[in-house]
């Protein structure tokens, strides 16, 4: 199977000489289109070699004390984390997942392997934007950088308490990708005051600069790329599904492996608009999951009626339809901002926007020698100028690749080598 795949890919490369010549010599990356790079995982052929399986186990942290989990979340019973462990003394990396991702999403599992191979223990933590985190571990509404950092910090403390008897830890490190990297920056700042972990190194992988900007950009990818506008969304989705169904039927089987997706992708050869819409859709769905869960956990009033008790058998369809039509901007303006304002009466909308931005902690980020950055020039979540801002902020602690989209190149050998080098303190 891998051999066949390699063959298919090589043939693909031969038919595609433009890419080969355009790529810089030192860093070759097969997808020059950032949407393509973002959707498609790096084909195995280009990926760093990783072990098939690494020693790891799951453990569950109890939900926040005095929290009663509503019946509608009957499947939730504490926050599950993954520990990946070495059999000898090693540094421990806390790894925070990206938007809507859990501790064991495919990308997280790959990063666990990368870090294990680099000689680290890893505790993987579900994103504060994921339903599981919102239900079990968010003290209030998710989205405020400082609140999320506090929630994460508490989870990290509990998680370490839970496993400290079974692993031998030399010191602590912190990392995360996408929204998880953004979270990590604020957690690092918090740790400077709390001093529980005294992180030796913190590595941010493809963070947004302004959460609001990035989220709006991602949402526009959906809204602007559905032919005929969002009113035609159902039709677009149906067509896409029919195409996918016929391709999988032709291929004879379905599996959710990178190779399979790659082949299906090759056959479908979707347009740039469709790729962009797909990215936007995936984001919109993550965001809808978060907003609904947050509303239920905070007593309702936004999507569900206030104080309505939803049970395991309550119909949710209408809430689902509304949630999927709710943009993160709506949530920010109509729910999160009034919620924060109730707590801090003098808070303006601009204040809150500023807080959801790396600018809020820029002096810390630029002066703290322990924080590093990996990013891509063509990352689709950044606005023009933001990559230069990050480069200026982190100076020689930043490694910025010319291509790779939003984390498409995460397992590229060069990216991995910088990652491990920085975390071990052996960069250069």
């Amino acid at each position, binding site marked *: 199977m891998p051999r066949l795949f390699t063959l298919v890919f090589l043939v693909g490369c031969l038919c595609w000489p433009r890419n080969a010549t355009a790529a810089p010599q030192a860093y070759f990356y097969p997808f020059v289109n950032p949407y393509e790079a973002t959707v498609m995982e790096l084909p195995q052929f280009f990926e760093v070699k990783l072990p098939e399986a690494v020693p790891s186990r799951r453990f569950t942290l109890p939900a926040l004390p005095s929290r009663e989990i509503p019946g*509608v*979340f*009957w*499947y939730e019973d504490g926050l599950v984390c993954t520990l990946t462990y070495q059999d000898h003394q090693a540094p421990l990396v806390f790894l925070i997942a990206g938007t*809507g*991702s*859990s501790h064991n999403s495919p990308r997280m599992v790959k990063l666990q392997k990368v870090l294990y191979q680099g000689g680290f223990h890893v505790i993987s933590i579900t994103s504060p934007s*994921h*339903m*599981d985190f919102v239900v079990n571990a968010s003290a209030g509404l998710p989205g405020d950088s400082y609140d999320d950092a506090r929630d994460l910090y508490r989870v990290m403390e509990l998680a370490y308490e839970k496993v400290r008897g079974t692993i031998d830890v030399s010191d602590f490190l912190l990392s995360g990708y996408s929204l998880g990297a953004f979270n990590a920056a604020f957690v690092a700042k918090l740790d400077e005051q709390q001093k529980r972990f005294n992180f030796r190194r913190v590595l941010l992988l493809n963070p947004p600069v302004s959460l609001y900007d990035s989220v709006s950009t991602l949402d526009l990818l959906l809204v602007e790329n559905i032919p005929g506008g969002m*009113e035609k969304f*159902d039709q677009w*989705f*149906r067509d896409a*599904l*029919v195409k996918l*169904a*016929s391709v999988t039927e032709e291929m*004879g*089987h*379905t*599996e*959710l492996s990178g190779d399979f997706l790659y082949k299906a992708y090759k056959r479908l050869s979707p347009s740039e608009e469709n790729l962009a819409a797909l990215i936007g859709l995936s984001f919109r*769905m*993550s965001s*809808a*999951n978060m907003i*609904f*869960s947050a*509303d*239920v956990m905070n007593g309702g*009033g*936004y*999507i*569900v*009626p*206030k*104080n*309505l*008790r*939803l*049970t*395991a*058998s*309550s*119909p*949710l*369809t*209408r*809430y*689902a*339809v*509304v*949630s*999927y*039509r*709710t943009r993160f901007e*709506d949530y920010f303006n*109509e*729910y999160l901002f009034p919620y924060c304002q109730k707590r801090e009466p003098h808070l303006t909308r601009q204040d809150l926007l500023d807080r959801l931005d790396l600018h809020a902690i820029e002096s810390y980020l630029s002066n703290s020698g322990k924080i590093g950055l990996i990013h891509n020039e063509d990352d689709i979540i950044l606005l023009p100028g933001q990559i230069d801002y990050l480069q200026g902020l982190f100076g020689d602690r930043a490694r910025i690749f010319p291509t790779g989209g939003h984390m498409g190149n995460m397992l590229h050998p060069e990216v991995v080598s910088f990652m491990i080098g920085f975390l071990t303190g052996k960069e250069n």
Partner: protein
Amino acid sequence: MGYARERMSLLMFIAAALLLVGGCSSLSKNGQDFVPPLRSYETVVKDEKPSMLEVSDSLEGFNRGVYRFNYYFDEYLMLPVVRSYEFILPDYVEDRVSNAIDNINEFGNLTNNLLQLKFAAVGITLGRLIINSTVGVAGLWDPAGSWGLVRQTEDFGQTLAHYGVGNGSYVVLPILGPSNVRDTVGFAADTAAFSLAGPAAWVDDTGITLAFTGTSVVDKRHRIPFRYRQTGSPFEYELLRMLYTMKRDYDVNN
């Protein structure tokens, strides 16, 4: 007629499971005395047509109960069995098992293509059956497929749809998962045909039929990549319902 008794006991088991989950589920109050939320359905949704998420589901409370039962069944029984199966057998052997089962199930494709008067598909299915049962060694391999005779999957649910029967309400079947009224009837008819007039009746051996049924169930789960909670969505039930309905529409139209 040993297989008839075995079917009966399966039915009894399903009925017991239904009662069990049915007892647990209760409909929540409809929120009449509640202040509508800021983003209520009425203020946000202005379309004339219902969204594709809104699938007819008159048994919803009950279905959600079965869904929950299936989640636990999958988690604590089905997946451990499937994992052992995958651990013991090499991938290559698993694929042979899948092929052999598909070959035996060509019986259903044959009858349903006949019932829909799709004679080209009947011919292809017959060709596949003959070639794969002989050259393909009792269906372990699929040489017919590689010669261009593509599997013509049809079931009685599709046959009913072919003659104009609508989906009916969505139904979640215990253990078997997503379905609708039409497809449930279809499944029952296909099962009856298989047992009373098909391969199970030809063999007429309870042990063999039981072994085949068991292996089919494990093989089927082995081939479905879906895992509960993998969507990370509180709307997993709705998403699955929508995708099932769309997939069946596709099957019927192709």
